[in-house]
């Protein structure tokens, strides 16, 4: 499913969507950035509660389809701008990571 379709279907908040047509192929849940970099695969949706600037570089480098911020985590405006500039899609939800993962699984 495309990132923009997933956001719409599951009523997720769109924070950054420069590449909404990207296909999501599975997901990965994690907050330790090096762990995520070692384990997550390209084109997955990455569910996290980390909200610092480094998540943008990590997402760009591992080439995930999108970041899904769980638990109503807020992002600073300059981080959102950086994501848009680097082509990183970010969706957000009030749901915990477990529930966000369920949405992902149900939409596969």
């Amino acid at each position, binding site marked *: 499913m495309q990132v923009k379709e997933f956001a719409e279907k599951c009523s997720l908040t769109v924070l950054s969507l420069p590449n909404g047509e990207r296909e999501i192929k599975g997901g990965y849940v994690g907050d*330790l950035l*090096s762990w995520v*970099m*070692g384990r997550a695969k*390209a084109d997955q949706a990455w569910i996290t509660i*980390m909200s610092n*600037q*480094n998540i943008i*570089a*990590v997402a760009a480098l591992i080439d995930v389809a999108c970041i899904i911020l769980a638990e109503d985590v807020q992002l600073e405006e300059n981080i959102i701008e950086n994501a848009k500039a680097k082509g990183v899609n970010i969706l957000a939800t009030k749901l915990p990571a477990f529930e966000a993962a369920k949405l992902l699984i149900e939409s596969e």
Partner: protein
Amino acid sequence: MSEALTLHFDVNGEDFTSAGQASVRFKKNMRELGVDPEIIRRASIAMYEGEINMVIHAHGGCADVEVTEEAITITLSDKGPGIPDIAKAMQEGYSTAPDNIRQLGFGAGMGLPNMKRYTDDMKIESTVGVGTTVTMRIDLPK
């Protein structure tokens, strides 16, 4: 590509939030060269981990990249404190990163193991009190 292409990046040790700039630029350079996306992904993650290490432990450093028809070679050099026990540093989960770095999601003890995981060869030369040089090679398909 008959001659080696070389790139040089300075890694600023003062600003942790901007760490990764060299790796992201490197990734863009490799894309423009038409390198296979999975190889770019591996090389840029390895370089990012190295960049983060230099920012956390060594107040920055520099990254030199050489691209030939056979391989991408990334050399990360710093004048930091050095690594007293390289075998220990290579263990997954072992980290000497301070708490403020852990709060940002780093310091999981996965940096050097990831660099080894994503490259075809990795060498660490380190002298305590002098600095560390990490050389990584990613082979390119013939």
